[in-house]
């Protein structure tokens, strides 16, 4: 989809899907098995890639092929995972067999096609919701991987939750260096430290990371924390506005922006205060594909402030801020 259509769908009936990314050896499968064997009384369907490092201990495991194709909608970055469309479609015929779905991607995968599948396919959208992209980072090797591979940048940029694994293998200085490197790319995703994938399940499952209910509420106030970045690097920008937004103007602006710059803007997320609306509006986009829905009223006494986050390359902060401010009601 090249337009930023703002639709509302009931979120509670949709099956939550967690996407696990991370480089080879980062500990994805260990984390996956930790999730599956934990005492949570929940059943998961697991979609793994063909050449998994370790066996997966679960009843319902599906092999995927990572078949990526471009949508025929004239938008070059609109790639989706065709195998996932088929697999999720079939799994949804057995909706009563599991409580959630976990998709493990191969180490070198760009998470964009996986995430975009949840926007682009009408059947997938109708029955599932992307709960979070969880990226597993190997504290020991991450800095090297980051130098060598653009996919590592993408995986950090796309993360709603980051598991910083193997922290027992590095000293405090290196841990700090790794955290700083992550923060330069993605300033927003919570980072959970782990050893051998021993994370709290509530940190990775059902976090609602993708639809922001939590992410932005835990977001630090670093708004004017402007590191100097080389503009080719992936980084994050956050904007906020206290004046209510005009929904129509926002839609026009964000639609045109993503249309023009969607190749560079990897992720956009926001919680928006639309004029005349009692509910908070959650907006999200992956490249050019956008979606949004009401997520319930503002809390009593809470300041109604619109917040918008961009993660991408060549982000022009003053320009984005001017554009965002122009959406305020006159």
């Amino acid at each position, binding site marked *: 989809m090249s337009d930023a259509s703002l639709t509302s769908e009931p979120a509670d009936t949709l099956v939550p899907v967690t996407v696990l990314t991370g480089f080879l050896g980062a500990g994805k499968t260990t984390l996956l098995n930790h999730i599956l064997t934990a005492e949570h009384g929940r059943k998961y369907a697991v979609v793994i890639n063909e050449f998994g490092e370790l066996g997966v201990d679960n009843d319902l495991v599906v*092999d995927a092929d990572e078949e990526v194709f471009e949508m*025929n909608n004239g938008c070059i970055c609109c790639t*989706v995972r065709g*195998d996932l469309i088929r697999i999720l479609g*079939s799994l949804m015929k057995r909706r009563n067999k599991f409580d959630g779905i976990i998709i493990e991607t191969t180490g070198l995968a760009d998470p964009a096609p996986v995430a975009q599948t949840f926007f682009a396919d009408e059947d997938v959208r109708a029955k599932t919701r992307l709960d979070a992209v969880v990226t597993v980072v190997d504290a020991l090797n991450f800095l090297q991987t980051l130098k060598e591979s653009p996919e590592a940048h993408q995986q950090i940029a796309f993360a709603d939750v980051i598991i910083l694994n193997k922290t027992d293998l590095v000293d405090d200085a290196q841990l700090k260096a790794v955290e700083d490197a992550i923060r330069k790319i993605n300033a927003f995703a919570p980072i959970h430290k782990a050893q051998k994938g021993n994370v709290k399940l509530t940190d990775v499952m059902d976090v609602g990371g993708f639809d922001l209910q939590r992410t932005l509420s835990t977001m630090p106030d670093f708004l004017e924390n402007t590191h100097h970045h080389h503009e080719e690097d992936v980084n994050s920008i956050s904007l906020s506005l206290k004046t209510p937004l005009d929904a129509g103007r926002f839609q026009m602006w964000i639609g045109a922006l993503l249309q023009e710059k969607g190749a560079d803007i990897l992720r956009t997320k926001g919680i928006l205060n639309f004029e005349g609306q009692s509910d908070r509006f959650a907006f999200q986009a992956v490249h050019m594909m956008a979606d949004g829905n009401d997520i319930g009223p503002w809390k009593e006494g809470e300041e109604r402030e619109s917040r918008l986050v961009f993660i991408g390359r060549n982000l022009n902060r003053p320009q984005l801020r001017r554009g965002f401010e122009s959406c305020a009601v006159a």
Partner: protein
Amino acid sequence: MSIPTELRGLIEKRGASRTVEGHITACAASRDNMRFAFTTAEGDVIVAHRADLAEPASWATYAVHDGAALALAPDTDPGGFLTGGDDGRLCRLDMHGEIEELGKTRRWVEHVASHVDAKTAYIASASGKQVELRDGRGETVLKTLEHPSSVTGIVFDTKGKRIAASHYNGASVWFTQPKSESVRLLEWKGSHTGIAIHPAGEALITSMQDNDLHGWRLSDGHNIRMSGYPTKVKSMSFSRTGKWLATSGADVVVLWPFFGGGPMGKPPVELPGMGGALCTRVAYNPEQEILAAGFADGSVLMIEPESQRVLPVCLNGGSAISALSYSSDGCLLGFGTEDGLIGLVDLSAG
């Protein structure tokens, strides 16, 4: 699970229904038209014998697959069925209710097709990028057809001389003749999600991810585009003569003309449906110019396109029609829904 309170339509007088566990994934008659089978996402196959059509409690249930039964086709034998499942098995359920495993792979067996004529019989199954073509017994793999990406549909032509498979960026047409190795690749960029072949072999049609149909005129490979759908087309059925292609995917039943130069440059005929409910399944009667259409609200209609006369087969089905099929003599019409309602109607005179 919603259990429909009262089904209305032809099914009240000439049919029977029952609710089983699981989403109904497919339905089909056996080759002798004496049995009718329904497959479920629980892996079961429910078989109704024509003699027991009015006694749904006597329809037999067989646990064939561990996981969902994904595909169903009549067996090459008169009274049996072939099924594929996400347990990677290709199975035969014979007329005595015996289950025989014909093949097993690591991947889901998503599509099964069969062909029988006086001289030859074939069984084909698709899993992942491969299509296995077997003899009529199903025990011998005659050849394994490799495709560039996962196969999303397979179809034999009317004479069983060719088998075509849809996949990303086009479709592949193979000769079934064991000695022939050649493949004809029909290319069109994008994700092709299903396939149908014109009964006289004039055209090959695929449904696409992008809510439209693509086709190739088989004589010269000329491309045909048929668009305008609000959703993906998941069901296509040619009329007996090949004059019309009926499709799902809109809140009307869409019929593309395959005559007088069509469908190129010709608008489709739109038959009214259920007043807004999406058409989810279509099936042309193999003997007459009548088609059946199933809708998202659980309704099934029989429609005579010429006169636009409509006969309700089932109203109040509760959930979307997910399977719909005629027997090859056109006398039985079966359907199933996402919530496990299965129905069978006897259309024969008397």
